[in-house]
């Protein structure tokens, strides 16, 4: 059975760390993909990046420290993550999975296709399974989303709207899933037989109610960058998790102009 709680997840990771293989692959490099792996553990501890009005940092809570520390200590204390975590991006971690250097990762729905492309001998559908992110205090999962926008300056708004409507139609979204393995935001696609009978997709679809996204504010890129800095400082031991998070709290308030 897959790990259901954080404690089980840590226990599994330790048991799977042996004979040159590690329990979990994590991202520590400076890329957006870090948040998909970090956020569930962070939010799952009951933490938030910002106050409810998005005007101040909420990173000075015990929950924030718990979530931050859990992610960082997977590498620094429990040693269930391969060395060089700061250099690992999404593709490096998938390569580690494909070559059986790590046993688990926090991945996207199209990851099995990528593993198979990296290592065609792996028999992904036979040896791999998907499971929900283990819960902490809150059950939460990260949503990675893409947006399409129609320019306010377009000379063809009706045509642009038709293209957009066609793109988000059920048929096109299902075809998108079949070709690229990308999950649609449409509920009728999520509940379709194609998804319900798919070994990996049905797990992802079941997480939809628990999906959460990062604060949609103009200052997020700065806050996100400062977060990656803090995670790297925690991973490398330059700062303790407490100090790294404290500096992140300061940097976040500075970005928001809330010092």
């Amino acid at each position, binding site marked *: 059975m897959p790990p259901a709680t954080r404690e089980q997840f840590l226990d599994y990771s330790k048991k799977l760390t042996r004979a040159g293989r590690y329990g979990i692959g994590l991202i520590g490099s400076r890329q957006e993909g870090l948040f998909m792996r970090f956020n569930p553990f962070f939010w799952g501890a009951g933490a938030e990046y910002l106050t409810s009005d998005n005007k101040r940092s909420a990173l000075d809570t015990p929950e924030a420290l718990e979530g931050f520390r859990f992610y960082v200590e997977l590498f620094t204390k429990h040693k269930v993550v391969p060395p060089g975590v*700061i250099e690992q991006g999404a593709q490096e971690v998938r390569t580690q999975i494909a070559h059986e250097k790590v046993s688990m990762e926090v991945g996207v729905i199209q990851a099995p296709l990528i593993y198979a492309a990296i290592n065609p001998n792996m028999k992904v559908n036979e040896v791999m399974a998907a499971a929900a992110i283990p819960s902490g205090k809150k059950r939460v999962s990260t949503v990675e989303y893409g947006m399409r926008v129609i320019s306010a300056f377009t000379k063809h708004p009706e045509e642009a709207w038709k293209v957009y409507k066609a793109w988000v139609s059920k048929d096109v979204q299902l075809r998108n899933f079949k070709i690229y393995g990308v999950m649609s935001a449409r509920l009728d696609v999520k509940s379709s037989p194609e998804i319900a009978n798919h070994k990996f997709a049905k797990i992802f679809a079941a997480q939809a109610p628990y999906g959460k996204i990062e604060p949609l504010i103009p200052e997020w890129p700065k806050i996100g960058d400062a977060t990656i800095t803090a995670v790297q400082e925690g991973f*490398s031991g330059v700062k303790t998790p407490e100090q790294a998070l404290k500096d992140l709290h300061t940097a976040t308030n500075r970005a928001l102009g809330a010092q």
Partner: protein
Amino acid sequence: MSPGRTWHDRHLGYLFVLPATLMLVAVLIFPAFITLKLSLTPEGGSGWSLTLLHYQKAFRDPVLLQTFKNTFSFVAWSLVGHFVLGLGLAMALNQALPGQTFFRLVALIPWTIPDVVAGIIFRWFLNPVSGAMNPLLRTFIPSFPADFSWLSNPTLAFPSLIFANVWRGYPLVMVMLLAGLMAIPRELYEAAEVDGAGRLKRFLHVTLPGLSTIILIALALDMVWEFRRFALVLTMTGGGPGTLTEVLSTLVYKTYFQFFTFEYASAMAILMSVVLFILSLPYVILVGREQ
């Protein structure tokens, strides 16, 4: 006015330089002016409402100040590495040895590799799990850890970056110094040898003085290029761990293209240009003197 010279004769030269001048204005002067104006514009502002707020912020920004220190350190160590390796190889390649042309070509190879490719190569090479560096070292030092981290190590990430940069950039300095060495008259060495000067004295009193101008030019040009180094740092470390290897070019890039703080990024770019101009003054004065 010389007799017989028409208006056409006097002004034809300007027409010849006009295309190059227009191109210079379009790709250099106009963007520089726009950047300067943007750096003086309030965030989200427009028109001619100007402010020095971004420069005030820059002088108080701890991240920018740390990045300046990182950049100076990066440039200084890269210059030392380029000079030592470049001079050593230039002197070796100046010897009349079999395969001289072949070795000169091989020595140029790192310079032909784009920054991005060099960054990726070294990132793979130094990877603690799948890289070649650790197994190579274990061949000579069996007790060396198999999973030693280079780019994730807060102490070694910066030296690793400099190591890669020295490897990538020494050929430029080497080529310039080699040209300088070839221009030193052989008779000077022969005269020194006749006077009883050994290798070290010939190097100190013939080679170095003969190369002094070339060394200054090579280091000045190298300094300007290394100050702007971007792709190698971005691909190898992304400025990490944390901000330990962040340099000015990556910070300006991040501020402009990721944070979308165009005005502050422009202020940083202007400050970077001013510092670079001040540092390159010796080169400008030297060239002006020679002309």
